[in-house]
């Protein structure tokens, strides 16, 4: 009976505020969808970082007659120097076990010919002009500075190349985009919050007679708040479901159907990450509905 009464009340409330309820639903829908996209973008950047950084190696190029690096003296690197460099690299704690691979001039030449096989410069270089190098895998791709500074400047080292210096700006840019997405999602969520509290205020105002009588005859505060709570939760749930659907469609069409096909080498966010994001979205949506409702109706219940 009580539930019956509350449900019929809920129906009346929703009908009375239909346009406001729709506005709330749409706001929650859009803001949560954006928020979910930001969550997924976050996951994607994480995946890409793992992917790229995992492949990162540091290249330690050694001197030839023509190189002018800090450790070079206009002569070829000697075997002693090479041994010393290898020892420094191998003993560094950041180097992965068995992570050192020496590339000879011949290997470098073969690689060069392969890379530039259609280019005229391929025929102009000789084996002798190639640089010997050590390719070093890191234990933790993020910890590279220590190794780079240990090796750079050693006698016989021309220069040390680290791919991170090329990747970092890329990831910085991606992170900037992410922050932007979070900020705009946050602003929209705040707008949704205010809109819900406004809607509840209007609904409470429309029902002030009923509320007044309920308080007078001793209805419990929870009983008075319940219709408003249900109204807000229902709107939030509808908005959240729409947002989740939007996110799934986006992931399906943009990531699964397009990106994954085009860039097969990269790892892409999939069902697991999307599911996790939708769960967070639903929770955020509910919190978004419940908190302003409680706060707004409390004002009307205070006596």
């Amino acid at each position, binding site marked *: *009976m*009580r539930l019956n*009464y509350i449900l019929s009340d809920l129906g009346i409330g929703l009908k009375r505020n239909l346009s406001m309820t729709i506005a709330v639903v749409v706001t929650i829908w859009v803001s949560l969808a954006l928020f979910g996209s930001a969550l997924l973008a976050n996951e994607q950047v994480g995946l890409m970082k793992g992917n790229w950084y995992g492949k990162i190696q540091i290249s330690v190029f050694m001197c030839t007659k023509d190189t002018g690096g800090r450790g070079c003296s206009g002569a070829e690197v000697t075997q002693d120097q090479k041994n010393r460099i290898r020892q420094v690299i191998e003993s560094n704690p950041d180097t992965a076990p068995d992570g050192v691979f020496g590339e000879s001039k011949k290997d470098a030449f073969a690689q060069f010919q392969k890379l530039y096989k259609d280019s005229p410069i391929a025929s102009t270089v000789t084996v002798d002009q190639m640089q010997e190098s050590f390719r070093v895998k890191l234990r933790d791709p993020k910890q590279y500075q220590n190794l780079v500074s240990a090796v750079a400047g050693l006698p016989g080292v021309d220069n040390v190349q680290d791919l991170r210096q090329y990747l970092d700006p890329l990831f910085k840019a991606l992170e900037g985009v992410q922050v932007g997405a979070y900020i705009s999602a946050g602003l929209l969520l705040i707008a949704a919050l205010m809109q819900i509290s406004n809607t509840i205020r209007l609904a409470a105002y429309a029902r002030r*007679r*009923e509320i*007044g*009588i*309920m*308080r*007078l*005859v*001793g*209805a*419990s*505060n929870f*009983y*008075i708040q319940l219709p408003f709570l249900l109204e807000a939760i229902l709107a939030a749930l509808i908005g959240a479901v729409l947002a989740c659907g939007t996110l799934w469609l986006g992931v399906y069409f943009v990531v699964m159907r397009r990106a994954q096909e085009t860039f097969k080498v990269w790892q892409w966010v999939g069902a697991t990450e999307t599911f996790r994001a939708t769960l967070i979205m639903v929770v955020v949506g509910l919190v978004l509905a419940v908190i302003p409702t409680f706060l707004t109706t409390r004002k009307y219940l205070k*006596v």
Partner: protein
Amino acid sequence: MIRFENVSKTYEGQTKAALLNVNVEIEKGEFVFLVGTSGSGKSTFLRLVLREHRTSKGHIMVAGKDLNRLASWRIPQMRRQIGTVFQDFRLLPNKTVAENVAFALQVIGKPRSHIRKTVPEVLELVGLEGKQDRLPDELSGGEQQRVAIARAFVNRPMILIADEPTGNLDPATSEGIMKLLDRINRTGTTVVMATHDVSIVNQMRKRVIELENGHVVRDESRGVYGYQH
């Protein structure tokens, strides 16, 4: 049933006290008129009993409970023992007579079977049998006030508070309402009624408490409205 002990009330932002050092004891089953000019403190008195406001000083005991010590979540429970009637009836215009009365029971979670049984009983008591399906707009003022009384009384409260219940009614209708309140009082319900209506007070010959500028200036057990000279 209701006891005011040195009660003072000053509303926030005001310097003048709405009630000042009021000491009043109202026994169970009493019928009390609260008289005085507008602004004398009658409404404040009633609001304090309903715990719509807290006292600034002093204590109010209602049904043995100190309202100042009552946790706010227990106030609804306390109000279920007090029925309230106003000058402006405060009925819900989109509900029928029976629904208006039933509403008071629904919102405190009474079972449907109880409501189905009690509502016709109380409508009969207030003299509205056969009108249960009317909307408030279709009723006369006196009938609307009867609905409001039915709603206030349907949960069989220990106390009935009436704030100028005849203020909008003509004398003949008012008399009917007073007879009804008297009947309710005879069931053992304590009735506290604030009024301006001289003839009613003089006719009923009940206890009269007069307030003036927040003070109790008169408390007579079988009083009339104004001083007798």
